[in-house]
């Protein structure tokens, strides 16, 4: 019993701070909820545009240009037809009228952001961003549009294909740090399968198990003591 208590205390010394961080960050996630964590309070998914006219560049031309393609999709983004070409390990986006690589202007990105927003605000600030610095597990160029609503919603647009890359709000900076602390991935990529997190996860498991064992043993010894005292009382009687 003593050695179990010692082990419990030793493990507590090791992980007490991280356990507090896990509980506090867990409470933060629960308190804010999915929508606020993702910054999507004022999000609306815009309906896809109708393809009214065939593009200037045919699908066969694109297929000949990318012989390794698995599929080619034609759709329209902000009144411009776009080919989305799925290759075995990547995706390529092409302007279906010019045949050139897809590019996004600030005006197009702004128009897309506005069609995916239903809040009361207007755009207060717009800037070009490196997506890897603002959203986990994303790379490449993008645009950020900050709205004047009470949430200070930010909409990120991916410049490589003019799609919504993600949302943010006034809690995003704290949320990002809470994820870093909860997952112990201080790079901000929100990878919870890292070695540090795995190791501490196991230590916590041993720590909780030892705690439960201590309670069970204490309960058992208390029962023994009670039984013994009852026996003694009976003998005395």
């Amino acid at each position: 019993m003593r050695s179990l208590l010692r082990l419990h205390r030793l493990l507590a010394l090791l992980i007490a701070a991280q356990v507090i961080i896990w509980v506090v960050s867990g409470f933060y996630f629960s308190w804010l909820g999915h929508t606020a964590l993702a910054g999507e309070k004022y999000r609306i998914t815009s309906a896809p545009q109708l393809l009214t006219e065939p593009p200037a560049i045919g699908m066969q031309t694109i297929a000949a240009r990318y012989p390794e393609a698995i599929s080619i999709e034609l759709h329209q983004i902000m009144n411009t037809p776009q080919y989305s070409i799925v290759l075995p390990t990547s995706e390529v986006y092409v302007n279906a009228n010019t045949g050139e690589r897809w590019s996004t202007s600030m005006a197009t990105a702004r128009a897309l952001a506005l069609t995916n927003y239903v809040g009361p605000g207007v755009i207060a600030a717009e800037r070009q961003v490196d997506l890897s610095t603002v959203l986990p597990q994303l790379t490449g160029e993008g645009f950020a549009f900050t709205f004047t609503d009470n949430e200070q919603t930010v909409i990120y647009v991916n410049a490589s294909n003019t799609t919504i890359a993600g949302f943010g709000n006034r809690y995003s900076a704290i949320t990002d740090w809470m994820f870093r602390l909860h997952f112990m991935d201080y790079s901000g990529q929100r990878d919870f399968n890292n070695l540090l997190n795995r190791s501490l996860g196991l230590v916590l498991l041993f720590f909780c198990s030892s705690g439960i064992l201590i309670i069970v043993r204490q309960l058992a010894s208390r029962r023994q003591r009670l039984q013994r005292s009852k026996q003694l009382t009976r003998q005395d009687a």
Partner: protein
Amino acid sequence: MKRTRIRWRIWHRRLAWLVGIQLLLWSISGAYMVWLELDYIRGASHTNAKGQQQLLLEQAPKTIASSAQVLEQYTDVTALTLRRLPTEQWVYQVDRRYTTLLVDAVSLESFTLQQADIVALANDYRTSQSSIDDAPAVRLLTEQLPQEVNFAALPLWQVTYSDLLNTTLYIDPASGVLVSTRHDFWRLFDFMWMLHIMDYDERADISTWWAQALMLLSLVFILTGVSLLLLQLRRLGRRFHA
């Protein structure tokens, strides 16, 4: 000093009765989730949602219709996708405002995927060739979705392999697109996620009041434990100096 320690210990024990089991469940579920790679759980290591059939238009028996011809024949189109099915058929997936249909890329006639097509597609989506089963159990779900794909829309093809992990692929009947991959490690992961967030019904709500209450109680419990530890360390320090 001794009295304070005893008081803290009593509170630590009392709170342990309240939160001990849930803390153990959090640690078990957390350990399981961090030890299994997320990509593996999502099925990325044994299925490829893109499929593996390259277009290879030059191998098509007849000339493929152009997108202009498709748009002439079908209205309300929002997206057109050219693909080659594993059954060596070139198709256009025509996404319309409210429906999706598959159209033969040569004749432009729409058609419905049959059970044999679904098996061929499922085998194509699977990347772990060794465990491919030629005759998986195939079912068209039309009335009720299983809990593991409750986000999807009906109807839905369910293809279950008799491998070690009971891998199940869910395929959209209209487009043949892989909707989801499920296997026993995913199912256990989902169960652990349920225990972790304490939403025993939908397994999606992270903001239940009982989870928040347990977290606050756990925080108090941990703080009593830390206080006990500090008192113990102080006692040891005094003994060492004496």
